[in-house]
């Protein structure tokens, strides 16, 4: 069983599994949308005293915070028991493009992580302008953008598109324009810093 789960999953299997996560949350009386957790955490932190936007009952989102804790535990379980040591099959074209930017893709799991380029995403790099832009500004834009746009990949791309909501389609188009502009126009500049 563990061996069966541990092998790489075909994308179609993964897609079905994600829709099952959505279905489970719907059955439990909620909806899929992870970025709302940021708002709930701000509310718990007392942001409602200053700003009306956060002045509401975070307990309505207690289930989401528990879901988030679960997903961290899921990450622990998966990384401990279910990850095989074979590299993820990233396309050669991407590996070459990234190498031109100075980012290496690890050949073995000892060399680095297949999930995060650890030569950029580490505490040392926070001392550089490049690191601050990618990590601190990148995180800021995720928080700011998801609240302004009304959701992230789970809430708009999965939940929203599944119920054929036009606002979600507009948001997903926005996600992709943003991602393409960053990758193709801004990355060459940021990585030259």
């Amino acid at each position, binding site marked *: 069983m563990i061996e069966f789960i541990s092998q790489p999953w075909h*994308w*179609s299997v993964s897609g*079905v599994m994600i*829709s099952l*996560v959505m*279905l489970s949350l*719907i059955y439990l*009386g*909620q909806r899929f949308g992870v*970025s709302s957790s*940021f708002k709930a955490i*701000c509310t718990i932190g007392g*942001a409602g005293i200053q*700003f009306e936007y956060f002045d509401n009952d975070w307990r309505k989102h207690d289930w989401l915070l*528990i879901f988030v*804790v*679960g*997903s*961290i535990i*899921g*990450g*622990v*379980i*998966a*990384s401990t028991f279910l990850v095989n040591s074979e590299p*993820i099959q990233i*396309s050669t074209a*991407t590996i070459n493009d990234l190498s031109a930017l100075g980012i290496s893709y690890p050949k073995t799991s000892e060399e680095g992580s297949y*999930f*995060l380029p650890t030569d950029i995403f580490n*505490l040392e790099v926070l001392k550089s302008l490049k690191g601050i832009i990618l990590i601190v*500004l*990148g*995180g800021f*834009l*995720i*928080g*700011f*953008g998801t609240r*302004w*746009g*009304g959701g*992230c*990949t*789970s809430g708009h791309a*999965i939940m929203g598109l*599944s*119920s054929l*909501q*036009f606002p979600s389609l507009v*948001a997903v188009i*926005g996600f*992709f*324009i*943003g*991602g*393409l502009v*960053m990758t*193709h126009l*801004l990355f060459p500049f940021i990585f030259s810093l």
Partner: protein
Amino acid sequence: MRLLRFLLVGVFFGIVMTKSEAISWFRIQEMFRFQSFHMYGIIGVAVVVGVAMQYLIKMFNLKNIFGDVIQFQEKPKIYTANLFGGFIFGLGWAMTGACPGPLYVLVGHGHWIVLIIILSALFGTLVYGALKSKLPH
């Protein structure tokens, strides 16, 4: 008990995000460079199956765990915000290679640097809350 169910769905989500490789910064780069079908396949299948699920739920008036007929809330039609906010999130998605769900899962993988991304995202959320009335929606 009620919350335990959500914990279990969360654990399942963390495993799915890992095994789908959707938490990989490299996979997100591959997607934005149109060099692999992998991420499009995942999102595409999830949406197609999701459309079928939501259609069947509505057609048969299926009930949730509380015995209530399942209703889907309409997303607010704030197209300017959807587009501009979505664009800004897209910039951050490409930079960090992760959307909010994978950020949490990566913490479980022991990538502590991601905690700084999450803290920054909380600050971004706070700034949005402060500026909300000044932004177009």
